[in-house]
C-alpha cells in the first residue's frame, strides 16, 4: 500500500553544505498495518513521513501510495488523513470552522452533524466556537484528531499523536486508533512513546541517521526470552544466589533467574513462607529492543 525504495533526501545548509536527512531509506507498509516509525531525535522519522505524503520530493528513490506517486494535493489524499507534529492550523478560524474547512477540502459534502460529532468525540464541544489561536496545545491536538476522524480515511498518518494530551485522552485516542485499525484503516505513527506504540502497532521500523535499521513485526521485536524468568516476591534477608536482583522495593524484590532453577525457587519461597507477586518468562519490551538495536548500530 505504501512503498518507499532507496529514498534519499538532503537539506541545504549554509555555505553550500548539505545535510542528509534520509539516506537510502526503504520500507513497505501493508494494507491494514498499524506501522510505527521509531528512532532517536533527528533520525529522519518526520522527514520520512513527509516523503511518504509527497510533501518533500526525494533527491533520489521512489515513493508510492496506493500505487501512485504522492505530491501536494494529489487525488490519493481523498483517502488519507494527516495529523501534523506541530499544531500549525488556521489560527483565525474557530474549532468548528477549522474542522469543517479541512473536511471541505476533501471535496465531499460533509454534513455539519458529522463535523460536530467529530468535535464531540474529542471532547471539544464546549470549545467549538473558540478561535484556534486561543486553544491550548492539547486542544489543538484534539482538534487535529477530529479533522482526521471526520475524513473517514483509509490511511491515517499521525506525527506524535499523543503529544500534549492528558493521560485520559491519550488512553481514549489509543482505543480509537485500535478500533480504526480493526476496521481496516492503515495507520502510520511517528512516536517517541514506545509503550503507546506497543499498544497500537503491529509493525515497526527503527530508523537512525536516515536509514531503516530494522523493519519487522512488533511480536518479533519483542520476542520472549525463554531461558529467563522475571520474578517479584516478598523481601527476605537471604536471597538465593541464582536470583539476580534487578530492583529492591520497601516490601518486595524484583529479579531474574534461569529457567532451570524454577523448581528450586518455588521450594525456597515455600520453605521461607514468602508471597510471589509475579513469575513469568521474561518478555523483551520494545524499549529494550529499540535500545539494543541502536546500541548495536553505534
Amino acid at each position, binding site marked *: 500500500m505504501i512503498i518507499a525504495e532507496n529514498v534519499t533526501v538532503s537539506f541545504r545548509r549554509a555555505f553550500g553544505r548539505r545535510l542528509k536527512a534520509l539516506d537510502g531509506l526503504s520500507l513497505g507498509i501493508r494494507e491494514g498495518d498499524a506501522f510505527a516509525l521509531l528512532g532517536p531525535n533527528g533520525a529522519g522519522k518526520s522527514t520520512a513521513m513527509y516523503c511518504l505524503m509527497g510533501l518533500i520530493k526525494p533527491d533520489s528513490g521512489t515513493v508510492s501510495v496506493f500505487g501512485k506517486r504522492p505530491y501536494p494535493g494529489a487525488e490519493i489524499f481523498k483517502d488519507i488523513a494527516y495529523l501534523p507534529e506541530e499544531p500549525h492550523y488556521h489560527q483565525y478560524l474557530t474549532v468548528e470552522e477549522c474542522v469543517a474547512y479541512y473536511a*471541505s477540502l476533501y471535496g*465531499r459534502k460533509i454534513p455539519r452533524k458529522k463535523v460536530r460529532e467529530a468535535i464531540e468525540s474529542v471532547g471539544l464541544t464546549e470549545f467549538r466556537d473558540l478561535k484556534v489561536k486561543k486553544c491550548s496545545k492539547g486542544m489543538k491536538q484534539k482538534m487535529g484528531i477530529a479533522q482526521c476522524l471526520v475524513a473517514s480515511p483509509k490511511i491515517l498518518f499521525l506525527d506524535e499523536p499523543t503529544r500534549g494530551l492528558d493521560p485520559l485522552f491519550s488512553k481514549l485516542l489509543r482505543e480509537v486508533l485500535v478500533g480504526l485499525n480493526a476496521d481496516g484503516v492503515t495507520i502510520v505513527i511517528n512516536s517517541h512513546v514506545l509503550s503507546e506504540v506497543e499498544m497500537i502497532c503491529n509493525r515497526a521500523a527503527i530508523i537512525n541517521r536516515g536509514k531503516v535499521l530494522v523493519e519487522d513485526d512488533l511480536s518479533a521485536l519483542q520476542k520472549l526470552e525463554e531461558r529467563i524468568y522475571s520474578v517479584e516476591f516478598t523481601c527476605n534477608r537471604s536471597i538465593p544466589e541464582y536470583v539476580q536482583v534487578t530492583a529492591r522495593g520497601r516490601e518486595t524484590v524484583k529479579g531474574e533467574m534461569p529457567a532451570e532453577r524454577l523448581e528450586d525457587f518455588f521450594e525456597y519461597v515455600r520453605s521461607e513462607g514468602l508471597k510471589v507477586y509475579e513469575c513469568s518468562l521474561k518478555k523483551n519490551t520494545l524499549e529494550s529492543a529499540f535500545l539494543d538495536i541502536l546500541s548495536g548500530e553505534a
Partner: protein
Amino acid sequence: MKEALIGNLKANLKFFKRNRLLLALLVLLIFIPALFSIPGFLMNSTGNRLKSVMFLYSEMSRFAWMIGAGSVLFFISHHLRNRSLKLVFTKPFTPEMWLLAGLGTSAALTLLVFLAVILICEILFLLWNISFQWGLLYMAFYDYSSSVMLIFYMGFLAVIFHPAMAVLFALIFQEGTFLFLKGVLKAAGGDAGGLSALLVKGIKAVVDLVYFVMPTFTPFEEHASKVHGSLRLEPGSFKYLLLSVNYAVVVSAAFFLLSAIFLKRKRLI
C-alpha cells in the same frame, strides 16, 4: 472540487474579516472621503465640486490598490509562514487551486472596495446635483483591472520573498524606476566617451531589457489620464479599456503560473 473551492473561499473571507490591520485600512478608507469632501461642501460652483469628486476618487482608488496588494501579501505570507499549508495540501486540493482561491478572494475584496468608492462618489454627485459621470465608471473599471494585475504580481512576490522583501522589491523594481534610469543613461551616454561609453551602453541594454520585460500596471496611460482629467468618454475610449483588460488578464495569468510553479517547489513543512 466545488465544495473544496467554496470552503476555501469562505475561510479566506474569514481571514480578511478577522485581520485587524486590514480592518484599520478599511476604516481609513471611510475617513478619506469624509475628510476630502469637506472643501466640496464649502464650494458653490459645480465645476469645483466635480474636481473635488475627481480628486476624492483618485485618492480612494489609490487606497483600493493598496488594500488589494496588501491583502494578498498578508494572505499568502501568513499562510506560508505559519506552516498551515501542509494540512491543506495533504488533502485532494492542489497548490494551484489554493493560490487561485486566495488571489480570487483578494480580487473580490478589492472589487467590493471599488464598488464602495463608486457608491461614495455617486452619493456626492446626488448631494451636489451633479449628473452621473460615466467616465467615473470607466476609470473604476480601468483601475480595478490594473489592481487585479497588481494583486497577482504581489501574490507572486509573496510566494518567493519575505513580505518585507516583497514590498521593497515592488517599490524598487517598477516601471517608473527604469524609465528614470533610461533617462539618466540617455543623458550620460551623450557625455561619455571611450570605456565609460561602452559601460553606459552595456547598462543601458540591461535597463532597456528589464523595462521591456517589466509589466506596466497602467497600460495605455495617456488615454486613461485623458478620461481621468475630464471624466468624459471619447469614441475610442472603450477600445483602450478592452485592450487594458486583455493586457491585465494576460499579465495576471503569467504571474499566476509563475506563483504556482514557485509554490510547488517550496518545501511546505
